């Protein structure tokens, strides 16, 4: 069995947010949607204050609350352990957003062309891109996927349904790492098979004691953090990226 997971080494993360940018480029997420988010936190008081960083993709929990509550099975577990999303089934009730303790879900409040970073109808943009297909309608990602013939997250973005990080499963199927992992300049992010004791992620977890975010919720996240500690109760966010308001 394969169980994909991620290990993030907080000692090596310096908060550059390249992971966020890589995710945006790979998955064409609209403004205000961050399938990967990097929290820049400040903890303690002067003169003992310190800055910490916490990258937050979807945790792809083993006991995913979003999967439990989704009334139409739009959110489901793949055999490889990822928590996937069937775009054709999601009816937009947003129960998954209510149930997820990590806030990784983003609802399509508007048509994606209205919240994309570029106005693709603008003549200057058309001239610059040579009439390229808009990012929010990327045909490479908009295909049907998997044995269940389901649309997965990572495809085009739509109004009225929920999207979230897919662990870039379209890349993983091709033998690549997720975009955030591939583009991390500090080599802080690692991706692999948690069931394989020889994999990079298993080796890292054997060497260092890590933690899982909000482990008190018993969701058993497949994202593990090493080289740091969970944010303290007095942690404050420094610069919040919100995108379009």
């Amino acid at each position, binding site marked *: 069995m394969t169980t994909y997971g991620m290990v993030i080494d907080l000692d090596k993360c310096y908060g550059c947010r390249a992971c966020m940018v890589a995710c945006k480029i790979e998955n064409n997420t609209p403004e*205000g949607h961050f399938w990967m988010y990097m*929290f820049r*936190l400040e903890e303690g008081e002067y003169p003992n204050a310190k800055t910490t960083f916490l990258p937050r993709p979807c945790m792809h929990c083993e006991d995913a*609350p979003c*999967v*439990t*509550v*989704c*009334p*139409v*099975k*739009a959110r489901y577990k793949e055999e490889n352990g990822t928590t996937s999303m069937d775009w054709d*089934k*999601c*009816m*937009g*009730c*947003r*129960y998954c*957003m*209510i*149930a*997820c*303790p*990590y*806030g990784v*879900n*983003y*609802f*399509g*409040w*508007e*048509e994606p062309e*209205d919240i994309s970073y570029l106005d693709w109808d603008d003549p200057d943009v058309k001239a610059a891109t040579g009439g390229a297909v808009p990012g929010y309608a990327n045909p490479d990602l908009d295909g049907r996927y998997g044995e269940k013939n389901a649309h997965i997250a990572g495809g085009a973005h739509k*109004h*009225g*349904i929920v999207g979230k990080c897919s662990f870039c499963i379209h890349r993983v199927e091709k033998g690549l790492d997720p975009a955030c992992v591939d583009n991390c300049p500090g080599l802080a992010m690692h991706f692999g098979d948690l069931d394989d004791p020889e994999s990079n992620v298993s080796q890292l977890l054997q060497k260092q004691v890590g933690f899982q*975010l*909000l482990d008190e*919720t*018993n969701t058993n996240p497949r994202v593990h953090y090493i080289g740091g500690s969970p*944010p*303290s*109760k*007095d*942690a*404050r*966010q420094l610069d*919040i990226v919100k995108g379009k308001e």
Partner: protein
Amino acid sequence: MATISPMGRRIEISPGLVAWLGVLAALILLGFVNFIRQSTEGHHLTGLTNDNPWGLYIVGFVFFVGTSAGATIIGFMIHGFERKDYAPLGTRALVFGLMSLIGAILFITVDVGSIPRMMRLPFIWRNETSMFTYTSITYYFFAVLLVAEIYLAVKITRGQGSDSEKLWAKWLAIGAVPFALIVVHAPHGSLFAVVKAREFWNTPLLPPHFAVLALLSGISAMTLVATASSAASGRQVLSKETFSHLGALLGLFIAIAAVMDVFDFIVFSYSDTITGNTAMDFLRGSNLPFSIVHVGGYAVALTILLTKRGRQTPWLTVAAAVTLVAIASYRYNLTIVGQAPPLMPFLESPDYFPTWTESSIALAIVSFVLLGYSVLTRVLPMEEDAGSLSEIVKE
């Protein structure tokens, strides 16, 4: 001006009735236009955000499921406790229950992003572990139950009911209360209570609290139905003794709901968690007006109902109306404050307030419920027409 309905009932079309229906129709039209805008332009026209994904529509949904469940109490009074003095309210209560249920379904319909996909729940797509799947099934069964009860009530009123149909009507009415409370509304509370991520909701006390509120909102609504029907027909639909009994019931359930709220308040005021502190901050801060209406409404209604005069119109009407508004405020606070505590300690609390678009759509649904009730209770035969209708049917 008067006309005869297809069911043989004489309908007085007064200028007041025309004005009332006209205002409701105008509000429905306005809300419908805004709903089309929301569907085409997007949900960003509402005050909802990724941090606060449920808002006024869910409040309306919860409120109307409660009133629909509570409306079944009248049938139980008539057949279960053999209080025949409640009989004039029998069909009205069923019609109100059905329109409330339709209102609840309309609220969830305008809330979701894809209505065609929603229509596939639960018959084509369903997840057995989701409380929403379960409750959606119960709404359909409850709607069928209410329609069957209305059908039998109309038939009996027209003098066409057989003995077996009368027996069915009796047992359906008796069975409707446990069905509405245990199968429909308490699991409705579980929609919230099962969410571990929202500590404010995650308590096994929420489903019974919902059941109590269903009874309270049902009794309040039925009191208003009785007083409004009396005002519209120019004669008292219920006797003084029955109004007094209704008032006493209303007071009893306000007291039970208030006691539950008091213990909720005590528990959260002692909490040292972020959830407890944030909840208290919201209840005393930005949501204070709703907290005042909730607590103050119960206090005012209870004070009125403690007096003998308070259990008769017009004071009983005031107490029932104030109670309904207080319950709506409680539902609002429950839904919004439940999402207020940040999921992680360093996140900000969301800042939600319904927009004009959202409010007008909600108002349109409330108007639709009232319009449907106003029309149906004039078209369908009511219990007081039993004698005259039997003769018309015989002719």
